[in-house]
């Protein structure tokens, strides 16, 4: 049986534990033993993205210590996985185990599609769903082809969702515009961040979405914050929750 290390981003661990559980159940249902190393805390992205490399370095080292040795590391987050794959070199290059870690850390959907080779996840999800393309997952991990590039189209996340029975994926005006979370950007540039988020919500609303989903709970947390303040008739669910709910039912 395939064993993976379950990497639960700090904000999911603290604020959205149900997303972590959904990811766990999903993996288990597909024959994967997911271990949760308790010593993990945070990948260090908030510090690194603020330019505070000195504060991120110990967290990178910690991450390697915690997850070294797993055949795969899987996380329900595009941005955290991108941190490990694309931005840990400056901290861990040359360290034993890092090369393997870099090559074997996956976001959940890409793990299901690329490693488990799952064509689809079973079940029904009879709702109108808007897929928010989280930027790091899309442009750093290339979970999809994106609207900017002239390459053959593909979308790993959408491919899993669209096979759920009775799901209606709505069509957005701007399919992959940033939601405006951007980590500390959400606070440092609060005005623009919220305008961006409100515009995303409005796009989903106009398209008839009941639920906004995506691979990054951080984006969804920001959109949910705006939705709840404005009392909009929408809710957010992580892709893991949708897949788990459909399959589990």
């Amino acid at each position, binding site marked *: 049986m395939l064993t993976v290390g379950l990497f639960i981003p700090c904000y999911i661990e603290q604020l959205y534990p149900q997303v972590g559980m959904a990811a766990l159940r999903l993996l288990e249902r597909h024959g994967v033993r997911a271990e949760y190393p308790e010593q993990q805390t945070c990948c260090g992205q908030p510090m690194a993205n603020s*330019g505070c490399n000195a*504060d991120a370095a110990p967290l990178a080292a910690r991450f390697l210590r915690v997850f070294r040795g797993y055949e795969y590391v899987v996380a329900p987050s595009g941005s955290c996985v991108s941190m490990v794959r694309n931005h840990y070199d400056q901290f861990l290059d040359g360290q034993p185990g890092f090369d393997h870690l870099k090559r074997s850390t996956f976001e959940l959907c890409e793990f299901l599609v690329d490693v488990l080779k799952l064509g689809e996840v079973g079940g029904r999800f009879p709702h109108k769903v808007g897929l928010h393309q989280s930027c790091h997952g899309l442009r750093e991990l290339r979970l999809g082809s994106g609207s900017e590039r002239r390459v053959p189209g593909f979308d790993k996340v959408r491919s899993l969702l669209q096979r759920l029975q009775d799901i209606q994926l709505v069509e957005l005006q701007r399919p992959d515009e940033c939601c405006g979370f951007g980590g500390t950007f959400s606070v440092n540039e*609060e005005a*623009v961040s919220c305008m961006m988020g409100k515009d995303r919500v409005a796009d989903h609303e106009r398209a008839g979405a009941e639920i906004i989903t995506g691979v990054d709970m951080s984006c969804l947390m920001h959109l949910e914050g*705006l939705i709840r303040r404005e009392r909009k008739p929408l809710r957010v669910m992580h892709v893991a929750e949708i897949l788990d709910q459909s399959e589990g039912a």
Partner: protein
Amino acid sequence: MSGISHPEAAARFVADDARAHWHDQALWWVRKKRDVASSAVPDWEALRDAAAGIKAHTLSRIGDYLEEFERNATARGAKVWFARDAAEHNAVVHGILSERGVTKLVKSKSMLTEECHLNPYLEARGIEVTDTDLGERIVQLRHEPPSHIVLPAIHLKKEEIGELFHQQLGTEKGASDPKYLTEAARQHLRRRFLEAGAGLTGVNFAVAETGGVVVCTNEGNADMGTTLPPVHIACMGVEKLIPRLQDLAVFLRLLARSATGQPVTTYTTHFHGPRREGELHIVVVDNGRSAQLKDKVFRRSLACIRCGACMNTCPVFRRSGGYSYGFIVPGPIGSILAPGRDASAYSTLPFASSLCGSCSDVCPVRIDLHHELLAWRQEIVKRGLLPRSKRVAMKLAGWVLRFAWLYRLAGWLARRVIPALPRGLVYARWNTWGQQRELPPMPRETFRELYRRLRGRP
């Protein structure tokens, strides 16, 4: 140089909600036109690779190419000048004009001359300077800088332009039809072209192999300005060099499509030496470019061909406008160039980004813009230019996250305390997140606690 706070300027821009959305839609539309145009080019991504490669090669042999260019341009009868900085550039241009008794200059778009603040320099010395690109003429009449490098007046509504023209060009009050206003500008600028003693242009590409300079425009203003007056001054940054004539094909197939969604600009004019009974002066400028060339990370952005695609796609630029950056080149590329000039004054610019990466994916020369923005953030922290409060917050957060027990304690406290506090306290002014957003609902259990309860201790 006084600093600019992008967040403060952006907040003011966003406060006029209707206008901010209008600006955002206008630029998104240009981004969409770029998408349509690039979709029609089957080898688009290969072109981007080639463009990036040609620029990287050229920069690695820039000294040789500059000498080759100078040799060939001179052989064709052009005069090549060298300017180490803005002051030398301005002095050279002024010298050429004053020696010939030129008092009226017509200019087509050149971001370099904006960078050097050429206009005020010449005007202070008695030379009338007319910016002839329609967008630039509009902002010149308003005594404003351009807000976008390709679409200088994108921040203005046609009614505002109509009022401006009514006051300064005598058009009808209240008239705002773009055709009508453009016609008025045509007549007004035509007189300037006919009266000018010299014409100044920028340079889109300088070809080392032939000693030629290429200028790409849509309106015809650069060509009016260089075919009527006998003196043509072409100002270029050293990074505009490309090796061979055939390399132009790669860039010309990318430039207009990236900038405005057109397959090519209306005019792509190649200048090799002066015209009969005329003069061609080419002013080659450094002004910090050789210093940027030294930097392993930031040298890559010297490949920029000033198309503006990064600005059009940037969700932050579209919602904050060019003036929020306080630099002649705004948006993603500007946020990399500006701190290079003055990291202290422009320290907020690399943070004026969610690092979404869209800019890097539209850049025709594959500059990894969002990675360079991140690199600038690291540099700003290293130089001690990050505001103290942010520095402290990050240090604290980093410290807490290093120790699992401390992290869990902090989380536990937050989840116990925050829901117990009165709403007015939680959502007070200090809570920036909470100004327009609800805080996430605090769950009873963390994932770790849930996992232990449902799966047992790992």
